[in-house]
């Protein structure tokens, strides 16, 4: 059915060969399915708004004077000028939350980027080569996995010290296990498939088999896992900062805002709690919804054959 509709489209609209190629690929197929999903489109829009907010904050377009406050403005209630009031140092809470977005997104992106690279590489090597390579890598990740992350990550940040870069590293090097395990299993499954056998028969090297043949058939799983890791990394940063192990207190972070708010609730001052919670809620909810939709659209079993 898809083939005939494509055929008529090709006849009606003269396009270049590369265009036709793209339109029929499985990636394009998945994108079409994703586009049809209204929840996915809406949550993608929300994620884009967050990204714009973060970029605006980083480029100094939004609330450039985030760190400036005066003791005379301490704990102002909400007003049109300060929608979430001001904190103990008289800084605008909304500005802190906006700049916290940049912190959160950078932790999500860089940490899950690190774990993507580690997990994909080790998983591919373990699954493809098997034998002692597999043994070593499995030993490595079961060892890391056997330590509760709530102990491991604080331990690492104790060693590395507080700071944003150390949070990237600590979260990145501890969160690749799930992806690695997944990719390892997929490689074990795919390396004996006929299409890989066919590549062997035509004389393809290991590198070609891994990168040209197997990897494109498992990257969709890495995508989904990257999205899940992104959300998890954001949450871990918040927890670490709340515990006083994450970013430096001067860095705007939702975790630090929550940490501050635990003493402020008795005043009562709810600005920090409300701002951090609302910002986190929106980002994590839309990310999770988008991930679900992404997984559905990439699942070959749900494809209309």
């Amino acid at each position, binding site marked *: 059915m*898809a*083939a005939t509709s*494509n055929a008529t489209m*090709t006849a009606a609209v003269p396009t270049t*060969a590369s265009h*036709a*190629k793209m339109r*029929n*690929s*499985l990636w394009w197929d998945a994108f079409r399915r994703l586009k049809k999903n209204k929840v996915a489109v809406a949550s993608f829009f929300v994620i884009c708004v967050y990204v714009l907010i973060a970029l605006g904050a980083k480029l100094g377009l939004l609330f450039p004077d985030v760190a400036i406050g005066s003791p005379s403005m301490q704990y102002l209630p909400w007003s049109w000028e300060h929608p979430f009031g001001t904190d103990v140092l008289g800084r605008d809470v909304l500005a802190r939350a906006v700049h916290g977005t940049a912190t959160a997104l950078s932790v999500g992106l860089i940490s899950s980027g690190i774990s993507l690279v580690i997990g994909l590489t080790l998983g591919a090597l373990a699954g493809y080569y098997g034998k002692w390579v597999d043994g070593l890598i499995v030993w490595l990740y079961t060892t890391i996995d056997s330590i509760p992350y709530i102990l491991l990550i604080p331990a690492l940040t104790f060693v590395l010290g507080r700071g944003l870069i150390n949070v990237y590293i600590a979260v990145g090097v501890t969160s690749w296990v799930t992806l690695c395990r997944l990719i390892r299993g997929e490689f074990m499954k795919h390396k004996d*498939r*006929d*299409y890989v*056998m*066919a*590549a*062997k*028969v*035509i*004389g*393809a090297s290991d590198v*070609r088999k891994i990168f*040209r*043949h197997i990897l*494109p*058939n498992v990257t969709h799983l890495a995508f989904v896992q990257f999205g899940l890791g992104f959300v998890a990394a954001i949450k871990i940063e918040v927890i670490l900062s709340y515990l006083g192990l994450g970013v430096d207190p001067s860095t705007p972070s939702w975790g630090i805002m929550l940490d501050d708010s635990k003493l402020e609730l008795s005043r009562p001052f709810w600005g920090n709690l409300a701002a951090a919670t609302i910002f986190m809620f929106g980002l994590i909810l839309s990310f999770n919804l988008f991930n679900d939709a992404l997984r559905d659209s990439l699942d070959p079993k749900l494809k209309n*054959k």
Partner: protein
Amino acid sequence: MQTTPNEKSFELPPLKVPDPNAFIQVNELTKEFPIKGGLFSRQIASVKAVQGVSLTIKKGETLGLVGESGCGKSTLGRCIIRLIEPTSGQIFIDGQDVTKKQGEDLRALRRKMQIIFQDPYASLNPRMTVGSIISEPLEIHNLFDSKKDRQDRVKQLVELVGLRPEAVNRYPHEFSGGQRQRIGIARALAVDPSFIVCDEPVSALDVSIQAQVINLLMDLQQRLGLTYLFIAHDLKVVEHISNRVAVMYLGKVVEMAEAEELYRHPSHPYSRALLSAIPVPDPRRKDQRIILTGDVPSPIRPPSGCHFHPRCPDMIEECKTTCPSLRETRPAHHTACIRA
């Protein structure tokens, strides 16, 4: 030949010089898959998939290989082209020892031998276009200098197997089973091989499509002078396409002869049972099927003596101890049965 693993390690393989008349020569090929288990993953047993098979195929000939599922016919075919590493034995293709080749030499030799897979859905990478699937072997072997020449060759191959030239920009999931099998054939032909293992190439296709693919394979053989090892369990298809036929049972060739000779005068009891199972399109003809009792024994612990003796209707006491080897029972007709 029937030895325990301990004795085997002291046994040197018989070194035979390649037969000048044979294009493909297989000597005493054995493949055992180890089964690991226990505390330290020791080898506790092995699946003896192929046990000392010897055969030859002449240039331009089709050797049919039949047998039931799990008898080792696919393993044998895959060992011959080094898709699976054989445990022992020799394989010559055009006088060159396939088993001794490594690295770059092996890659160069791969141009001569190709395979067509059974499942046309699993054997094509779903993320690659048909064009890149077919041109990949050309890239690997650096067969054409310019991209233009390579594209021309791909177009030529696509037309050779009877697909429309637009197919090169499409993805495998846009094609039917028969068309996909044609893509697989084009990929195998890309490097201009002389020997092709057809590993049940039509078993996964509709009957109406089977004939088309079989005819394509026969046509290509004539035009390109190909040599085929045709693996199948459909006896009628094998009879149609093969010059000679070998029957396998539990890792061994039990009978080998010209196709017509074997189908008219099967002399191994297993071949007779197999052939009697072919349905005849004649309702008045009385069915005289030989029903074999029991299942195929496990290739982990094959029976003593003749592997077929537990199920053989003509079994005598000697069959339990004597392991029959292939001998000429009729002119150019080899059978591994002491009673034939």
